[in-house]
């Protein structure tokens, strides 16, 4: 049990260790807001080489260059939205690490919820049916008992 708790703690620690942005290279930011914006952007943009990582986590060379581009654009005064739009214009929606909620991605976003709802309905109706069967059996047993008592 102790080992389990320790393992859980270590896993949790790793899950929350992801907040740092200066994982690979450091930049000098003109303002703290710029640094905040940079952190948000490199976590929201996907690495196109290591496609399951965001720019913050990937050390692929293209990711390094994309981070540099983000930094340059922020330094030149672009907003977060402008930078995301810039990347989407060139790489498509896939460059957003979290897929946008659009008509074409509604299935992606909501099908897990729908599956879960369907599964919940199936489980609940199964349990209800079980309960009814048990009640019917009990009912039948009571009828039998009543009959045998009456027959005496």
């Amino acid at each position, binding site marked *: 049990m102790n080992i389990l708790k320790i393992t859980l703690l270590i896993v949790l620690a790793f899950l929350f260790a992801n907040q740092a942005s200066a994982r690979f290279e450091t930049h000098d930011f003109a303002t703290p807001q710029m640094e905040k914006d940079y952190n948000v952007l490199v976590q929201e943009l996907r690495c*196109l*080489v290591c*496609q399951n990582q965001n720019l913050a986590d990937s050390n692929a*060379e*293209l990711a390094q*260059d*994309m981070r*540099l*581009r983000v930094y340059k654009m922020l330094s030149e005064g672009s907003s977060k939205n402008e930078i995301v739009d810039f990347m989407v*214009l*060139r*790489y*498509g929606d*896939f460059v957003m690490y979290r897929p946008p909620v659009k008509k074409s991605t509604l299935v992606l976003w909501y099908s897990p919820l729908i599956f879960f709802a369907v599964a919940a309905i199936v489980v609940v109706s199964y349990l209800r049916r079980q309960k009814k069967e048990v009640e019917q059996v009990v009912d039948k047993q009571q009828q039998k008992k009543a009959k045998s008592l009456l027959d005496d």
Partner: protein
Amino acid sequence: MARYSVLIGFFIMIGGFAYMLNLTNTGEYNPRDIPTEFIGRAAPAINVPDLYNESEVVKTSDMKGKVWLFNVWGTWCPECWREHKYLMELSRSGVPIVGLNWRDERAEAKDMLTKMGNPFLKIGYDPDSSVAIDWGVYGAPETFLINAEGMVVAKHAGGVTPAVWQEKFEKFFIKNSNF
């Protein structure tokens, strides 16, 4: 009927899986492929110095009026070495190819071209991906086809082979009498 529903559902899933597996084994269906956003749009600028002549700036506008290929390559990319021979063939038969030497060392790039020949009219030197990002490039080799009006009309991620040429690019060159 209800007792068979699980079995039916199972077979439907198996069928779907088999269908998708078949798709991924044929043609170009590749889940990691990122389709280009530029088909039908004006080709982005290049605007970086030439690999050989550093005082010359390679410009997209220089190629206006021609149908041409824009090939992104690097000496670090094995597929680029493999497609090089066919690029030489294409350039010898008159296809204009502008190169982008991506994330490379000038000396090594020149070395490779000395060894294997130079199929390019001009080569942009892009050590920090500024041009690559502008064109939505995510790997090498990638080749774009730009028409005479300066619009991107086709793109291929991966090496250009005779099959790729025939399927994707050839049709845009046939109409022109002087490439």
